[in-house]
């Protein structure tokens, strides 16, 4: 199994699988968030009973953290190796080869998302699950109300929206690129996979943005 570390395609394979796994996680996350628009009670039930401090939620959290960890560590190694392979001297005339902006800036986009993640984990996850697990005082069980408080600050909403836009760029390249790396691509499927990727990233990012903005404006808990 050492080829998963030593071989370039092996490393890329790990990077794609962890990326695809994280996309699945995001899909779940956005679906759960959308509940906030309709009903706080349902959301709190999901957050406390379905997730919360249950053993399956803890295992799930550890797996997701592992997924992020692998994806981030591999991205750092891949980027460093690629810079080395490129050499120290840059082109004087700079590259004028047309290539999508997101494909050339995956690491920077990922960095933006990672920084956002620190803020996000502190504001939400630390207050909801972490405090409860480690018996720190002030653990929140009214998750929906906590989210509403956080999103009442316009600057937080703006930061979140910026991160989601970065995420959109990251995913539009990431999705098809991941499938390309696991070998699922040819001239016919290329267009389809790119289309599916665009729809997926649009759904995920518009969903996240919609929840943040609508909650700030007070259009939430509509079916209460």
């Amino acid at each position, binding site marked *: 199994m050492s*080829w998963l570390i*030593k*071989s*370039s*395609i*092996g*490393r*890329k*394979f790990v990077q794609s699988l962890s990326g695809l796994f994280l996309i699945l996680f995001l899909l779940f996350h956005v679906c759960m968030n959308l509940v906030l628009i309709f009903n706080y009670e349902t959301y709190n039930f999901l957050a406390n009973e379905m997730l919360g401090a249950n053993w399956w939620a803890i295992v799930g959290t550890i797996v997701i953290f592992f997924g992020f960890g692998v994806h981030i560590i591999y991205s750092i190694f*891949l980027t460093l*190796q*690629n810079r*080395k*392979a*490129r*050499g120290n*001297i*840059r*082109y*004087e*005339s*700079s*590259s*004028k*080869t*047309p*290539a*999508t902006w997101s*494909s*050339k800036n*995956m690491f920077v986009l990922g960095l933006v998302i990672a920084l956002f993640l620190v803020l996000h984990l502190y504001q939400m996850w630390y207050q909801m699950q972490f405090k409860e697990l480690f018996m720190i005082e002030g653990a929140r069980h009214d998750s929906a109300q906590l989210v509403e408080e956080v999103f009442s600050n316009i600057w937080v909403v703006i930061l979140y929206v910026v991160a989601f836009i970065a995420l959109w760029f990251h995913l539009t*390249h990431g999705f*098809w*690129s991941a499938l*390309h*790396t*696991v*070998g*699922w*691509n*040819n*001239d016919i499927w*290329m267009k389809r996979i790119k289309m599916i990727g665009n729809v997926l990233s649009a759904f995920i990012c518009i969903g996240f943005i919609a929840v943040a903005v609508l909650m700030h404006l007070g259009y939430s808990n509509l079916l209460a």
Partner: protein
Amino acid sequence: MDKDINIKVKVWRQNGPKDKGHFEVYPLENISQGSSFLEMLDILNENLINEGKEPVVFDHDCREGICGICSLYIDGHPHGPDEDITTCQLHMRTFDEGDTITVEPWRSTAFPVIKDLMVDRTAFDKIIQAGGYTSVNTGGTPDANAILIPHDQAELAMDAAACIGCGACVAACKNGSAMLFVSAKVSQLALLPQGKVEAAKRAKSMVAKMDELGFGNCTNTGACEVECPKNISISNIARLNREFLKAKFKD
């Protein structure tokens, strides 16, 4: 109509692999737009020789886009700003009066500069030696219809075989990755029954050699495909990934 133009060429000069290297600007007068880019460099070199200076070293051979030895990174593009051609097929009518044309060598750790614009591309030969062939015990020539090959497979294999190994993909890639080259060389054989026999071994050893020689990891920017003078498609890269992963899972 083609005119005679006055231009400046900004050329990378580097005395040897260890030299730091620098740019030098040479003005050229009355260059016919009908001449090829390499003819323009020939004129430049003749001027330099007449002035008692050292001529600019650059790779060239067939000058008809087949051999794959010419390189040159011209104005931000490998093989220059024109589409689907090698440097030797680039003509001066792509440029205008008063232009300053920047000419650089391929830049990649795996392609060290030998002198001026000439880089060492033996890394590609080493990758081919690692497995880019079929081991055949030669005997009598079999009938052409003895091994049936679907037409579209034959076409795809032929498209992959159009790769001339010039290295423009590596030069264009922000990661210095050789995946387009390796994938074309793996595909041209993997698509045909004769090549299938050793497909697993070939994919593994060629990728291992590519990594060993210091080429980067592909991130699917697609820059290679855009600059490839022979229009090699990146769907070959997906095929190489497939072949490689299949081989590894079989182990």
